[in-house]
């Protein structure tokens, strides 16, 4: 939703669309119909924008987690449609892959959490609603004023920008700028985004390693044979936690004897 707001105005004021050039084509009386005067680019934009906003409201209004996630998927998908409409194919596909695909995991968690009855319907309290409304409204007001203060977005677009290719983007990420004249940068050379890209990727790698570390299978120090003995004891049956952390397990864990063999 927030990502869309800064696009809104630039689009509404874009009177020039690729479809516009053909609208003046003379010919059949169909051209005289009132629909012929409509800028279909704007119509499609408004359609996608309405879908995105409507489903975003649906996310807030719904009380079932799975439905919320589904509405979020539709809202984000409509935003991707806006990107495709703007000719930003790479960003649109990214939106589909990362945001819409990422919501999939959210949906999975929603399904797992609400398969039982108590969580099927979520109703926030009145104070929560008020707090959320204040926070959301203030953010919306901030974004609206910020985007309305950019003069260039209020003027109608003058030319149709040719559809960009993803290749210059990829090359800029590895440090070669092909879309930028060399004299433009103060250093004199073409500088790309190699360093930020590398920092982000190393950061993601750290996150991945951390997640793998947290989610790894816990290796039990207690050999299996001793487990069986401990489980047989009446005291430990009552408190299974004591088996894992019992001093018996710890002392014997260090010295794997022939008795235990290749215990895990």
């Amino acid at each position: 939703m927030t990502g869309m707001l800064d696009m809104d105005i630039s689009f509404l004021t874009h009177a020039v669309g690729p479809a516009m050039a053909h609208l003046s084509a003379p010919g059949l009386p169909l051209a005289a119909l009132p629909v012929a005067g409509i800028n279909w680019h704007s119509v499609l934009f408004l359609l996608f924008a309405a879908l995105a906003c409507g489903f975003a409201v649906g996310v807030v209004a719904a009380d079932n987690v799975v439905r919320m996630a589904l509405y979020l998927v539709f809202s984000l998908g409509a935003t991707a449609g806006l990107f495709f409409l703007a000719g930003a194919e790479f960003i649109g596909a990214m939106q589909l892959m990362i945001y819409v695909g990422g919501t999939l995991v959210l949906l999975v968690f929603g399904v797992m959490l609400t398969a039982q009855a108590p969580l099927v319907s979520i109703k926030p309290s009145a104070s929560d609603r008020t707090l959320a409304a204040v926070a959301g409204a203030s953010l919306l007001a901030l974004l609206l004023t910020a985007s309305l203060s950019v003069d260039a977005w209020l003027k109608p677009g003058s030319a149709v920008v040719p559809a960009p290719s993803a290749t210059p983007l990829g090359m800029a990420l590895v440090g070669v700028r092909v879309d930028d004249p060399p004299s433009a940068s103060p250093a004199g050379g073409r500088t790309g985004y190699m360093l930020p890209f590398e920092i982000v990727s190393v950061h993601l790698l750290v996150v991945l390693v951390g997640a793998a570390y947290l989610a790894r299978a816990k290796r039990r120090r207690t050999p299996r044979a001793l487990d069986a003995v401990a489980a047989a004891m009446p005291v430990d049956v009552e408190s299974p936690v004591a088996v894992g952390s019992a001093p018996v397990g710890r002392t014997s864990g260090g010295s794997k004897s022939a008795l235990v063999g290749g215990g895990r």
Partner: protein
Amino acid sequence: MADFLIGLGLPGWIAWSIAALVAAVLLLNVIAGGALVFIWAERKIAARIQDRLGPTRTGGRFGWLQSLADGIKLLAKEDLMPEGADGLLFRLAPYVSFCASFCAFIALPFAFDVVGQRLNVGVFFVVAVLGLEVFGVILAGYASASKWSLFGAMREAAQVVSYEVPLGMCVVVPVMLAGTMDLVTIGEKQAGWMSNWYLFHDPFTFVIFWVYVTCAVASVNRAPFDLAEAESELVAGFHTEYSGLRWSFFFMAEYGSMFLVSALAAVLFLGGWNGPVPVARLLGFSDGTGDTAAYAVRLLGIANLIGKATFGVLLMMWIRWTLPRLRIDQVMTTCLKYCTPIAAAMFAGVMLWQLFLPGGLVPGWGRPAGEIREGWLEGPGGLSGGIRSAADPAAPVDLVKRSPR
């Protein structure tokens, strides 16, 4: 086509709408007609592999009208919904599945420039949209209010999320070789004899193709990876509670996706519309020799690609009726311990091969006669003096106009 209609005097928006509608209807028929044929083929192949006859009577010989009869039967079936089901999601789920499968076809080229919408990031788009099909499955599983459906949906989610990783890595390799994500350009770069296919580009691409096949079978939820259905364990998995036309939408989506991943494999690794033998070129057709020849080339290309994709689908059926179903832990092991590391190693291998042996071991092997570059590199506003056509640095060629072979 839209230009042609505008030339007839239609206003632009009607012309564009008609052109879009024609493309959409054609693509829809690829899925629906394909599903009819493939379901019949699946039954015949399954029967032959199991030493049976399969459908024999409907429509005369070979039971070739069996799928149509099934379709009519499905239309006439009662549309049931379980009592505890979430009505909206239950009704929506089949359409979500089908729409995702259909949308991916938009960016899939059937021949040079025969594509619904030529996207600069075609590969990326197809993979991204294909991943959305699982939404329908999860929604169906959740909304059915049945434990079998829920189990199936959860398995499907785990499987698809896992297999997207190696699948993405396999898809990146042809992108790296072609230097673009545009599916049309990738296909056109493999023009000529089959030695130009990326499958035979180097040993690493040959291996990674089979990793792609494994991941593709898993990602379209086919046996031996059909844990979401698993009829011996979960009744019918996520579509246990579905009947009639809604049920058939899931199957159209499944067969559509099968065709899609096969066609994607054909474009990425098997030369797309460029055959094992360049028939069009040997016949003397090329894009430059007039409109009729150009249409002939396109038609041959479409037939070629559909043939390759059909072969891929038949291969999937063969696999399905040959291998037993994997357990969920085996599915995960296959993905995380085999497919992902192999794909990563092959990716690095292809990278090194491109670095040290860009010309290949055998001269003339694996290199198209005409180099094709993306249009923005050339021309006055393009990258001047930077990257040039590798074959002939002096004469960079446009994307559309190919240098003579």
